[in-house]
């Protein structure tokens, strides 16, 4: 008999009942809630006269709609205001703990969970948000669900799941200087495509992943969904244990000892077999920039916008034509020649302390280029913001001409007032370059925090490795 993968172990320890068709009723240890995908779930409970199965297993945070400007002011957008207040009201009514807009711990749900120790290794965790895959970095089985499933988890603490196939994405060797976790995951998506991981649970491994901090691992797991995989995960090691120790909701004392011993088992057995293995060599990964309207439309910074006429597959060629038209780009244009209008450093992909440190290191002592209309830094949480301020990073950014904002999802999806105007082009540390994602008619280029920071200073992308 072959060994178990990390995914097998997490799955097996949470099966309440097998249905015999590959699906099972899976126990959910933790659910994170936010204001956009929860109102209809709470309403469903109310209409059916149901109570949460285990209230304490839920934590709510407002993040998608919140303004990133002065929080002492009321929310200006009346529709956003209703949604935020609906979450407040639902949490009060059902007794769910909420980190509301004015709580110092408030932030993006996928930054807050790990930071507070609400996410722990070995858990199953869901949230009505596709970037829930982020939490897999802690050796957690974490995936996004729809609102009906949010309600199902609230009411039963379980969800019916089809077991996925397993994929190992192994990044061998060491990353070169200036190349980061974001470049790894963009390169992976460029390789396997946005549907490459569909139907799979992905484990990331190899020397380059083992060498990453928890923040870097979260960046990679976060964008599993951009590769089509609902769940991404990294095996537990010292980095994981050191990150979790001392978090506000992490176990302590004897319970910690017991938990740690159990978490150490959360690795794929040496003889475990994966349904698919993808190998990339870290030393071949260069800083990446997306040029199109799908995260798979990505290329090394030193390359040019590709030519759809050279694409053999007609469906892909058509998608490329459409993307270049939307992005207003001509084939053959060097990626470093594309002029930018706005800069966004933030999102659940890249708004943790390490991301801000990387960006600040590039920015220190320089100025945002003339042509940039707005450059935003939006910390992932109140805790990240405080830490950054304690390190003086806020002053590095503001001295250079960036705006230093309050935490939230912000311009990653523009549900709050932070968004692109039609035709504006943005270098962004976020995760999606879909048409209209950052604002109707807006054009998004995805890259790492260091690359986006450097782009802010030059008004176009530059290769961070070539900076003095």
């Amino acid at each position, binding site marked *: 008999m072959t060994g178990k993968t990390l995914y097998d172990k997490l799955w097996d320890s949470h099966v309440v009942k097998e249905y015999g068709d590959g699906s099972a009723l899976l126990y959910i240890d933790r659910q994170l809630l936010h204001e956009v995908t929860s109102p209809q779930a709470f309403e469903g409970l109310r209409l*059916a006269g149901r109570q949460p199965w285990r209230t304490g297993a839920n934590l709510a945070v407002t993040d998608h709609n919140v303004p990133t400007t002065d929080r002492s002011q009321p929310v200006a957008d009346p529709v956003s205001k209703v949604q935020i207040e609906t979450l407040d009201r639902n949490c009060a009514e059902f007794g769910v703990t909420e980190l509301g807009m004015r709580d110092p711990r408030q932030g993006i749900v996928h930054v807050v969970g790990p930071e507070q120790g609400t996410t722990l290794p070995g858990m199953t965790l869901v949230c009505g948000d596709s970037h829930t895959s982020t939490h897999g970095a802690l050796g957690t089985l974490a995936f996004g669900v729809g*609102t009906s499933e949010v309600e199902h988890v609230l009411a039963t603490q379980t969800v019916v799941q089809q077991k996925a196939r397993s994929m190992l994405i192994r990044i061998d060797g060491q990353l070169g200087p200036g190349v980061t976790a974001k470049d790894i995951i963009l390169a992976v998506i460029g390789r396997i495509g946005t549907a490459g991981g569909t139907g799979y649970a992905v484990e990331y491994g190899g020397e380059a992943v083992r060498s990453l901090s928890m923040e870097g691992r979260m960046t990679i797991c976060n964008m599993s969904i951009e590769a089509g995989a609902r769940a991404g995960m990294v095996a537990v090691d010292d980095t994981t244990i050191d990150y979790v120790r001392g978090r506000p909701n992490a176990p302590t004392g004897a319970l910690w000892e017991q938990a740690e011993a159990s978490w150490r088992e959360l690795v794929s057995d040496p003889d475990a077999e994966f349904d698919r293995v993808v190998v990339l060599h870290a030393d071949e990964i260069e800083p990446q920039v997306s040029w199109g309207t799908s995260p798979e439309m990505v290329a090394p910074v030193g390359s040019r916008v590709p030519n759809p006429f050279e694409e053999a597959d007609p469906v892909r060629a058509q998608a490329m034509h459409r993307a270049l038209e939307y992005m207003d780009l001509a084939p053959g244009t060097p990626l470093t020649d594309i002029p930018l209008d706005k800069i966004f450093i933030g999102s659940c992909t890249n708004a943790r302390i390490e991301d801000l440190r990387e960006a600040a290191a590039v920015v220190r002592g320089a100025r945002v280029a003339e042509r940039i209309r707005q450059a935003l830094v939006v910390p992932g949480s109140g805790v990240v913001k405080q830490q950054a301020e304690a390190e003086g990073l806020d002053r590095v950014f503001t001295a250079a001409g960036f705006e230093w904002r309050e935490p939230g999802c912000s311009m990653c999806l523009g549900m709050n007032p932070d968004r692109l105007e039609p035709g504006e082009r943005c270098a962004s540390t976020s995760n999606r370059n879909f048409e209209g994602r950052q604002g109707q008619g807006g054009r998004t280029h995805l890259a790492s925090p260091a690359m986006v920071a450097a782009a802010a200073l030059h008004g176009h992308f530059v290769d961070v490795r070539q900076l003095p």
Partner: protein
Amino acid sequence: MEPFTRHTGLVAPLDRANVDTDAIIPKQFLKSVQRTGFGPYLFDEWRYLDHGEPGMDCTDRPRNPDFVLNQARYQGASVLLARANFGCGSSREHAPWALKDYGFRVLLAPSFADIFYNNCFKNGILPVVLDEAEVERLFQAVYAAEGYQLTVDLPEQRVVTPGGEAFAFEVDAFRKRMLLEGLDEIGVTLQEESAAIRAYEQRRRQEAPWLFQEEGRP
């Protein structure tokens, strides 16, 4: 939930790969706290030439004449024929809510994104995976014949063309049952599995007590 057994309807072809849920229902409409009323804003940025906002009356908004759902021959379509990786991106259930509210009951594509696929079943929409070649043939057939209809039979798990040709499809037993009977999945779980869930929790409290210490803590 509305049960689904057999459905015959007009087919609309959406000839793009990787249609994401941001395109199906843009972010500004996600601010609604309701489950209904999203239909008029389905594919808002592709369907209209102006910028849509929640609550807007769409009757007189300028339409994009090139967008497939604005063409006269596809009015009343209830079967959407699409390309690979349909529904990728965000987990927003607003996407199937909008498709359902517009009138779609069946989606046909070579592949769907996982979360979206799952969300469809919760809302009485049947997403059907056919292979690339079959989908390509259906695109040609729809373009060739105005008023082209397909019959989708869930009990038999097949899609039947007007000429009587049938394409088989897969669907797992649990989802099929929920959809056929239009069951409230939460009600079913509570009724059939409450004891199993409690037994699981009891065992886990022994094995991994730290997972239960959250109760009552901020």
